[in-house]
């Protein structure tokens, strides 16, 4: 057990300084403002600079293959969060790249992976369908054999960053008659293929995601990943990564759960609320003098610290749930000015808590809903069995 500050050796200190100066140069106020306005969580110029600097490759590769050491990986992670680097989809690209590696043909692997490391290739997810919900295996997007290729028809929801990506990691149905886990085939489809349409959607937290439509999209068989009707195997390894299955090291240099970054944003909002509550207003009064403010703030802090302490899949739920539970109290404490968004005149905490309240919703939905994770805890940790659903009406 150890929660101490890490003493950096001279080399690692130099790395930290280098990272800070790099981010200071490239992640400007303009970049951050643009990111807020577009909700894209992606900035091509920053992304390419990170790639050119070698950080993308170092982040993706294991230490044994030239990747970051655990302490540098953690420095990079913390500093890019501190600098508010538009980053979220880089994690998606990395996750897909890792999944693709064992399943792709050598030609595709070569083309895709080198581009991922330089930043020129980005990848997006094509799992969920407009009518599918959380069960990704209920897939209606069809891929049909056509000579040495395939014809794809269908649509996908939450293909976030598709408009900045070169490939979509696409789940298709290749055998509608088969049981659902034996009917799936995965492809890595180039997004410039004719027949693909990307339509933007904004979510309540201001993020941009997409719905993508596939109309008679013809792809070569070389873009197939894994076996025909063996897509479930490919998908499983991707879902494990997306659900935040983390191999822990012994040094305490890793984040404790998937979505920890969101937990830290929540903690910052709580810290800021505490600072505001302690400050005197124009009439010399402090919010903290109100005992109900003091109580609600203290209870909120306790719950946030508990969520930040919660590990692995448990933490995945705790963080999103606590954001939803605590942010309304924080907004109440800050009063009417907490209804103002970032950038608005005299917005409380410059809209920080207001943003947490809105962000808490998608955080509990994307990458698997909170119910999906509660099911997993119930089944795999507590041994309660698979959830029972009533059979469909005949």
């Amino acid at each position: 057990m150890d929660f101490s500050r890490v003493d950096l050796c001279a080399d690692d200190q130099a790395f930290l300084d280098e990272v800070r100066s790099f981010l200071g140069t490239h992640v400007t106020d303009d970049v951050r403002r643009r990111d807020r306005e577009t909700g894209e969580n992606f900035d091509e110029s920053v992304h390419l600079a990170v790639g050119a600097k070698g950080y993308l490759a170092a982040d993706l590769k294991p230490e044994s293959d030239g990747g970051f050491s655990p302490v540098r990986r953690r420095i990079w992670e913390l500093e890019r969060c501190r600098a508010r680097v538009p980053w979220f989809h880089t994690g998606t690209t990395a996750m897909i790249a890792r999944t693709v590696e064992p399943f792709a043909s050598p030609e595709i692997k070569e083309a895709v992976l080198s581009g991922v490391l330089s930043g020129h290739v980005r990848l997006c997810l094509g799992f969920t369908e407009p009518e599918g919900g959380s069960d990704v295996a209920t897939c209606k997007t069809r891929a049909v054999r056509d000579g040495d290729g395939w014809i794809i028809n269908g649509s996908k929801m939450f293909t976030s960053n598709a408009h900045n990506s070169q490939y979509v990691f696409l789940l298709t149905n290749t055998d509608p008659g088969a049981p659902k886990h034996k009917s799936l085939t995965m492809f890595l489809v180039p997004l410039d293929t004719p027949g693909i349409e990307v339509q933007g959607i904004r979510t309540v937290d201001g993020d941009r995601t997409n719905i993508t439509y596939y109309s008679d999209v013809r792809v070569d068989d070389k873009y197939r990943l894994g076996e025909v009707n063996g897509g479930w195997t490919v998908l499983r390894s991707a879902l494990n990564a997306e659900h935040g299955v983390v191999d822990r090291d012994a040094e305490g240099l890793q984040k404790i759960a998937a979505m920890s970054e969101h937990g830290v944003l929540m903690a910052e909002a709580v810290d800021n609320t505490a600072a505001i509550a302690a400050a005197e207003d124009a009439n010399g009064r402090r919010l903290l003098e109100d005992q109900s403010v003091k109580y609600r703030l203290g209870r909120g802090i306790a719950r946030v610290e508990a969520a930040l302490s919660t590990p692995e899949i448990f933490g995945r739920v705790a963080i999103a749930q606590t954001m939803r539970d605590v942010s309304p109290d924080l907004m109440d404490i800050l009063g009417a000015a907490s209804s103002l968004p970032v950038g608005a005149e005299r917005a409380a905490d410059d809209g920080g808590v207001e943003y947490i309240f809105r962000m808490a919703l998608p955080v509990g939905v994307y990458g698997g809903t909170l119910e999906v994770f509660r099911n997993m805890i119930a089944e795999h940790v507590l041994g309660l069995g698979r959830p029972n659903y009533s059979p469909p009406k005949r």
Partner: protein
Amino acid sequence: MDRYELQRLDYSLSEAHTDLQAAYRQFFKTSCSIDTVRAAEASGFDKNLWERLCAMGATTMALPESCGGDGATLVDLTLVAEEIGRSLAPVPWIDHVCAARLLARLGALDIANDGAADLVNGAQIAGLDPQVDSAGGVRLIPTGSVADHVIVRDGETIVRLTFGTRPFRVDNIGRLPMAWIDPAKADSRAILAEGAGALAGYRRALDEWRLLTAAALVGLVEETMTIAAEFAKTRYTLGVPISTLQGISHPLANMAIAVQGGRNLARRAAWFLDNEPDERPELAASAFVFMAEEAAKAATMAVHIQGGLGVSSEAAATAYFVRARGWPLAGGDPGASAKQIAEIVAARESRAERRS
């Protein structure tokens, strides 16, 4: 606070930790069945169990070596507390350990003094008033009917009270050996310390009490959750085990989440009190506020899952249920701790604002 500072997040237990944990888990498993717990309900105290626990060194470990103790860390103590909660052991270990450590801190546990050894090894029991904002005067002390020494705060002074005849126990939902104590009626009243240093020492004892109570509640919730989960796996409705219904499984999953979060938070709080006490002084109270709320919620749901059988006063579930409420409540309104948390963090964050 700089939330992006490079700090380790290593919650792992050492081999010494896991050995300690296993020894106490085994001890309570063999020595403290639910029948033992029930049998002690009239007094709130199992003297035989207490003596065997003390013989294991459970009180000695908690005190500094300078007082003849073994100098265990608070992290060690959270591991023992968790097992006490898991087994609902009717022993005043948390209160005794916090009070004896307070005596040591105040220089009132002089190893040359005959009475000191008895306090270290648990032959004499120490108790304290665990309320954050005790108003003074007559007060409810959780160990009042069994403690040989009762330590209370009286204004600016810390005093030790003894009673020739032990005060009567009052029935209480936590099944504790609780009694009303009137300091004015004590047979002896010794001032141990006074002033700011003394009060800081007492505050530390209150932090330790809340920390260890939080850890006990973690064990309590985990056990009542496990009992409820086992019940749900074997109970059928319309041909399926009720454990496969999300109305049952999701509340159980929420308990598992609370256990994981509360446990890690208590250990992190303990680590900071052990190693960097001025760094995160709000965490012990945070663990307490979180677990006080979650324990009652979880223990209620654990009874509910077992339905008509659960609500029977013979069911283990109800034994967990009443203590989940009564143990933290013995420390007074958890809201008082919540307000302390707010004060600590608000002071820290306004200092940070001024710096930036």
